[in-house]
């Protein structure tokens, strides 16, 4: 697989920011994940390895280290619920239960209709607005059951 031209053009600009090309690898993986189906496929990793003049195993080593990178295809929407302390103190587990109920997905999995992937994540830095989740890259804060139903219901 070759990387799409628009991405290559972006990467060519990105690498200029750094004295060494490889520094742009993580931002580049983000862009691939955003543009190429919400995950980093083995083909994408190979293409990235070629672009950055690395061994594919080195790209894999980076992709697998960082929690934000996915190595399997997610549903159309991804709900990442924080389960760390400030959120836990304000009912994060109940929010997780509610999210699963509304989406029909289990934690760590995708709903049968392929619409939602639900996952637990560590502190997202929104602790004063707990509990919270990230939906497709946007934070939703100060959640309660009604809000969860409204936000996710509007999508399904």
């Amino acid at each position, binding site marked *: 697989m070759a990387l799409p031209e628009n991405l290559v053009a972006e990467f060519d600009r990105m690498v200029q920011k750094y004295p060494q090309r490889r520094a742009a690898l993580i931002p580049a993986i983000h862009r691939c994940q955003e543009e190429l189906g919400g995950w980093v496929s083995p083909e994408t990793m190979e293409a990235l390895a070629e672009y950055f003049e690395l061994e594919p195993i080195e790209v894999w080593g980076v992709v697998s*280290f960082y929690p934000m990178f996915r190595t399997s295809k997610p549903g159309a929407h991804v709900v990442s619920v924080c389960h760390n302390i400030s959120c836990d103190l304000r009912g994060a587990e109940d929010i997780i239960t509610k999210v699963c109920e509304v989406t029909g997905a289990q934690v760590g999995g995708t709903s049968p209709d392929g619409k939602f992937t639900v996952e637990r994540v560590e502190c997202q830095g929104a602790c004063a607005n707990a509990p919270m989740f990230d939906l497709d890259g946007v934070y939703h804060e100060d959640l309660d059951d009604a809000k969860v139903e409204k936000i996710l219901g509007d999508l399904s």
Partner: protein
Amino acid sequence: MSHPTYLLDRSRIEDSHTLKVAREKGAYAAFEAMLKAGQDPKDVTEVVKASGLRGRGGAGFPTGLKWSFMPDATKDDRPRYMAVNADESEPGTCKDRVLMREDPHGLLEGCLIAGYAMGLEAVYIYVRGEYRLPYKRMQDAIDEAREAGLIGEGILGTDFSLEIHMHQGAGAYICGEETGLMESLEGKRGHPRPKPPFPAGFGLWGMPTTVNNVESIFNVPFILERGASWFRGFGTEKSPGNFLCGISGHVAKPGVYEVPLGIPAREILEQYAGGVWKDRKLKGWFPGGSSTGIVPASVIDTPMDHDSIKGIGSMFGTGAMIMLDETACVVRASEVLARFYDHESCGQCSQCREGTQWLNQIFHRIENGAGTMADVELLESLSHGMTPGKTICALSDAAAIPTLAVIKHFRDEIVEHIEKGGCPFKASTGNAPAAAGTEVHA
């Protein structure tokens, strides 16, 4: 709320993130004055030193002193860098996000002054990957500032040049540790480096590097403009200035509040955060993020500054207070945090890799009714094997210290779990049990 403020003043104004509004409200004034006056860069560092500003990223290290560790440019002409630490992943901590989102030009001005003082080639602002809006605000601010001649070659017609770049991380707590951050910025796994060598001599790409927290750098323009003695008018002698206190958990009004260092914790809780929620009593609190040991309600009158919090056996950390009411379970809180440290350990050191796994499993079994009295001693001996200074970085300590603190202050509650065969608070929290295991991501 009678305390004077400066950090968040601009943030309260509409569209404060735009160059136009920020400049009208004083952004870049300190930098321009310094540049036009051709101030000696060494003087700038001296002013920051004299102010007594201490790092707001967790360790409280004096910022000016850190800058002065950079090698003398006349003897070492290698390119030098600063990485601004915007990884903000310490549970409870949610302040840098506010600064970047509402007042990105304030942070850029701090970077410009730091760049001038240390003779930097470039500044990289390393933002945790999840902070998309703060990243965008920062990037837009950089674009606007560049357009206005404030960033790049020959800034404002002088011979001073500086590049400022945004860099997006990808969600790993360990990348907030300064050497993990540098590895990550170089495009690698965020594995902390053994120290020495220290970043000032061997940092990003092996070049002299300073790593500072967002809020630390954000303070700098105010110090330069108004003077070190003005700054010392806030806070205490050894911990001057205001800080952003993120207060979360069981309070009526969680939030990020600007308060002077040395303010009694009770005043933050009661006057700013509206007291403990639901008319309940306080049980315990973490003074400065999840890595600082929990302390009991009885010390709530302690001043929030580095020395005073150290005096009650904890740490000021990031100043992020996490409050637990009387219905909260400290074993569950410990379990949630142990699970976190287990998940985030990078695995290089066996004490940390194995230790965090054990702590997680033991707290989980105590909370769920399978703990034994021997587990309390096991928690203690494991923790002593993990701290102090036994590993490459301080994540191991960050997991062990709160464990020792919870045993010290809440041993009875742990024992009660063991004797009763489960959590005595479960019914009252109205919250489903925490999940076990560390494979939390899809």
